[in-house]
C-alpha cells in the first residue's frame, strides 16, 4: 500500500518552469558594472503582477538594506534628517 501510494504520488508531474523566465533571470544574473544598481538589485525586473504576497509591504531589498543600515536611498533622505536636526537647533537657540 505504502509503495503503491508513493509511486502514485511520484507519477504526478510537476508544472513546467515558465519558458519566459529563462531570458529574464539570466539577464538579471549577467555581470553588471559596479555602481550600475543600488545594492546590485534595484534595477532588476520583479514580477508583482503574479500575485505577490503583500502589496503593502516594503520591497525585500529595502527591508534587507534597512537592516544592514544601507537604506539611505530608499528611506527619508539625509537632507530631510539634516533639516529636522537644524530646526531643533534653531528652536533650542530661540528658547
Amino acid at each position, binding site marked *: 500500500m*505504502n509503495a*503503491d*501510494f*508513493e509511486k*502514485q*504520488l*511520484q507519477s*504526478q*508531474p*510537476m*508544472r*513546467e*518552469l515558465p519558458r519566459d*523566465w*529563462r531570458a*529574464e*533571470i*539570466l*539577464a*538579471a*544574473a*549577467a*555581470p*553588471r558594472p559596479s555602481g550600475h544598481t543600488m545594492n*546590485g*538589485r534595484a534595477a*532588476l525586473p*520583479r*514580477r*508583482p*503582477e*503574479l*500575485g*505577490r*504576497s*503583500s502589496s*503593502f*509591504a516594503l520591497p*525585500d531589498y529595502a*527591508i534587507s538594506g534597512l537592516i544592514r543600515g544601507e537604506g539611505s536611498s530608499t528611506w527619508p533622505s539625509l537632507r530631510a534628517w539634516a533639516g529636522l536636526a537644524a530646526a531643533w537647533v534653531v528652536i533650542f537657540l530661540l528658547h
Partner: protein
Amino acid sequence: MSSSPNIERLYDDHAPALFAFLLNLLRNEADTYDVMQDLFIKLGSRPALLAGVRDERGFLLRLAHNAAIDLIRRRGARERNYNQLAREPAPLFAQSADPDERVFREKLAEALGELPADQRAVVHLKLWEKLTFEAIAETLAIPLNTAASRYRYGLDKLRDRLRPLYDEIK
C-alpha cells in the same frame, strides 16, 4: 549584457527542479520567481560559490531551501500584519486531460500545502527529486533520522487525506 555560459548551463540543468521545489514550498509564483532570480544573481556575481562543490543539484537545492525558509518567515510576519492569508495558491502540478487525475492533483496540491514546510520539503525531495534520506539530510542540514521521520509523518498525512480519492482511481 549576456550571461556567462556556466550560468546558462546551471539554469538549464537545475532550474526546473528548483522551480518545482520552490513553488511547492512557497505556493506563490512571484515569490518563486524572486527567489530563483536572487539565487542566479548570487551565482552570477560569485562564481566561486560553486568551486569544489561535488553535488551541484544538492547545493543549489540547499541555497533555494534556505532562501525560501527566510522568505516564508518574513512573509508570515507580513501576512499576520496585513491579514492576507486568503491567497489563491499557484497551481503545482501539470494539467491533465483526465478528470480523475486532475482532481487527484488538485487534492494532492492542497494536501501538500497543509503540511508544515519542513515536512513538505522532505516529501518533495524524496518523491520528486528521488533523493535518498542521506542526501536529503545533507541538503536540508538536518539529521538523517529527522529526514526519515519528517517523510513518514508527511506521507501518513497525505495518505490519510487522499485515501478516498486514491482508492477510487487505483
